[in-house]
């Protein structure tokens, strides 16, 4: 028989062990008022220029609409996602929330009935006439229209002009073969061709996404990423992983798997790496990191499809909003020329409004404008295409190929097997 102390001791141990299984939480946010005079917006945590620009936008809207009060709630990325998840289906949702686009991230909230189909406002305000075609397309992925583009982020290859010159590269690569040749020249000159930070999986993912687009072409890439394409049977998938491995072995900075993207960015800022696959936000960072804006330029990853790489963030109206008309009015102001002037280049160089030119003082404004205008379309970062669980497996396969634990030939099959088992 167990003694009294023994029972207590065992019960304590069981309770301690049970603690390992515990998880949970809940919380509620602000409420919206149906008075047509107030709006609540859930926004990510902002600082510096972004905070200033957002405040200017809100104040500009309030000035145009006397008596209207806009309340912004800010959260860091993960708490923002959690708050929306917990508030879904309750009265605690805001009138407007900022979120990413794409079937994976944005689509998840749309499936959960968070977002209001705002097609009638698109028609009423004729937003399709003022938004870029890419921005409109972001809202059309799920049938009807969900959200209005808040910022368009495009990604391309930044290059260090002096290092290219030192390696004898006189023309910017326009094909993938030319890009490889340039990388080879840089390597021969003792320069790290491209910097990457592998601890944040999405940084290396950009290279893989671009290689899928390069090797598979736009149509098959879209099927693989957004449709019913089979990763296990498309030969181009293997080709893409072979190329990924080649970049990892030959052209990325040494030890890239063990450093973050912030650390790897320093290699570009300090002239130790010649290229970086980054977005339009990277230019100001490079300048803050000690480079002159004249020291670097950009060119599109030469996929051969003519599409530009990037992702969108949108402001969505919630289904539970008590003031959808006022929310639509705010969105209309946000994408107006006045509203975009208030935002400036704090969030992105390229405006979602096709009639708004990049601010003159924005880093690489003309270059980005030219790249986007020349693009025949866009392709998304795959962490926006995939569900979060699928993205995790995509990253695992990508990193396993780079570290040699999965062969490029098996990579597509491995990913497809997971999709089939967990779809």
């Amino acid at each position, binding site marked *: 028989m*167990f*003694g*009294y*102390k*023994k029972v207590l*001791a*065992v019960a304590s*141990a*069981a*309770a*301690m*062990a*049970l*603690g*390992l*299984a*515990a*998880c*949970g939480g809940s919380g509620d946010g602000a409420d919206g008022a149906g008075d047509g005079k107030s709006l609540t917006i859930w926004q990510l945590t902002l600082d510096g220029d972004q905070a200033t620009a957002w405040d200017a936008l809100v104040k500009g809207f309030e000035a145009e609409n006397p008596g209207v009060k806009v309340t912004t709630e800010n959260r860091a990325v*993960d708490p923002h996602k*959690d708050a929306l*998840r*917990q*508030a*879904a*289906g*309750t009265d605690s949702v805001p009138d407007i929330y900022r979120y990413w686009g794409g079937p994976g991230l944005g689509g*998840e909230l749309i499936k*959960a*009935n*968070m977002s209001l189909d705002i097609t009638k406002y698109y028609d009423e305000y004729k937003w399709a006439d003022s938004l870029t075609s890419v921005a409109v397309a972001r809202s059309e992925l799920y049938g009807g229209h969900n959200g209005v583009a808040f910022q368009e982020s495009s990604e391309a290859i930044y290059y260090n002009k002096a290092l290219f010159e030192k390696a004898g590269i006189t023309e910017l690569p326009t094909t993938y073969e030319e890009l490889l040749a340039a990388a080879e020249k840089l390597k021969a000159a003792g320069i790290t061709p491209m910097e990457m930070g*592998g*601890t944040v*999986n999405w940084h290396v993912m950009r290279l893989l996404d671009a290689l899928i687009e390069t090797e598979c072409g736009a149509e098959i890439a879209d099927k693989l990423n957004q449709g019913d394409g089979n990763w296990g049977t498309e030969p181009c998938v293997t080709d893409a992983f072979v190329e990924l491995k080649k970049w990892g072995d030959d052209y990325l900075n*040494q*030890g*890239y*798997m*063990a*450093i973050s993207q912030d*650390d790897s960015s320093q290699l570009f800022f300090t002239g130790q790496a010649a290229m970086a696959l980054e977005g339009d936000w990277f230019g100001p960072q490079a300048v803050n990191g000690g480079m002159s804006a004249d020291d670097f330029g950009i060119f599109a990853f030469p996929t051969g499809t003519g599409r530009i790489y990037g992702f969108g963030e949108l402001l969505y109206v919630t289904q539970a909003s008590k003031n959808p008309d006022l929310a639509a009015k705010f969105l209309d102001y946000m994408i107006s020329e006045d509203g975009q002037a208030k935002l400036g280049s704090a969030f992105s160089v390229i405006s979602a409004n096709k009639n708004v030119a990049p601010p003159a003082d924005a880093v690489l404004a003309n270059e980005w404008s030219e790249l986007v205008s020349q693009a025949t379309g866009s392709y998304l970062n795959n962490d926006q295409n995939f*569900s*979060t*669980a699928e993205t*995790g*497996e995509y990253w*695992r396969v990508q*990193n*396993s190929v*780079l*570290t040699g*634990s999965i062969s490029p030939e098996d990579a597509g099959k*491995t990913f497809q*097997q*997971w999709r089939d*088992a*967990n779809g």
Partner: protein
Amino acid sequence: MATETQSPPSGTPQTAQRARKPRRLVTALPYLAPALLLYLYFLVYPMLDSVRLSFFKWSGFRTDVPEFVGLANYVRMFTADPVFWTAARNTIFWVILTLAVPMVLGLLLALGLNRQMAGRNLMRSIFYIPSVFASITVAAMWRWIYNPTLGLVNQALEQVGLGSWAQTWLGDPKIAIYSVFVASIWQAVGFPLVLFLAGLQSVPQELVEAAKIDGANALQVFRNVTLPALKPTTVVVVILTIINSLKVFDLIVGMTGGGPAQSTQVLALWSYTQSFANHQFGAGGAVATVLLVISLALVVPYMLWSLKGQDK
């Protein structure tokens, strides 16, 4: 016969003691109740609910009604989750290594630092200080130490002419888990050290002296006197070490995030990732339940064995 006269009659103090035990519990209950209720509501209920959730498919959205799927989450976890087995292997590996290295090291340090010597208190503090640091701070520090280009380890190897030994300590799946474990040892050794130091104070010095007089050498004294006297302390250290090892989380998150390619993944982190990053709360609950079963399977038998006879 003397033995007969010493037999306790019925109604002896022993029986009375047994009768008093329930009454003691009744007396204690008013004091225990508030904390017990809070404990049941905020700890036990969520734990059991997590187990319940493991039989459902749920994205975490309130608008998404959890769908009962029976054992599907477990079947998928065991057969189609490429990370689970890596996480399970790493977790068990972590428990074994933690029992073997920091605990033994803690005991040896305690034996050394229990002697009279100059600077003893300073050395005790030096060895204990890392264990008071937050794990995330330790992770940040060791991430820098392991930095492949600027880190202390590789720089030091370069300086002494062993540059060829330099590694991407946290970027190579073959060694990343060991690299994290080294940081763990650095942080964890202070905990058993302090407990064993406390335990050593309870070793009866007269027994030690008697053993020495009887001609026992240092090893014999340690094996036959010190070690048995340390048994209660060892029980506590082993149990807490197992539990802490099973739920290792923050050091892994801070140093590798479970990477590269999930090679440093552990069950506690994988449960969290499935629930809060992948938004598969059923799958996360299933991993947590497996972790719970492993915990109970390891801790309860050991506890029962080690407490044998202590009620007498």
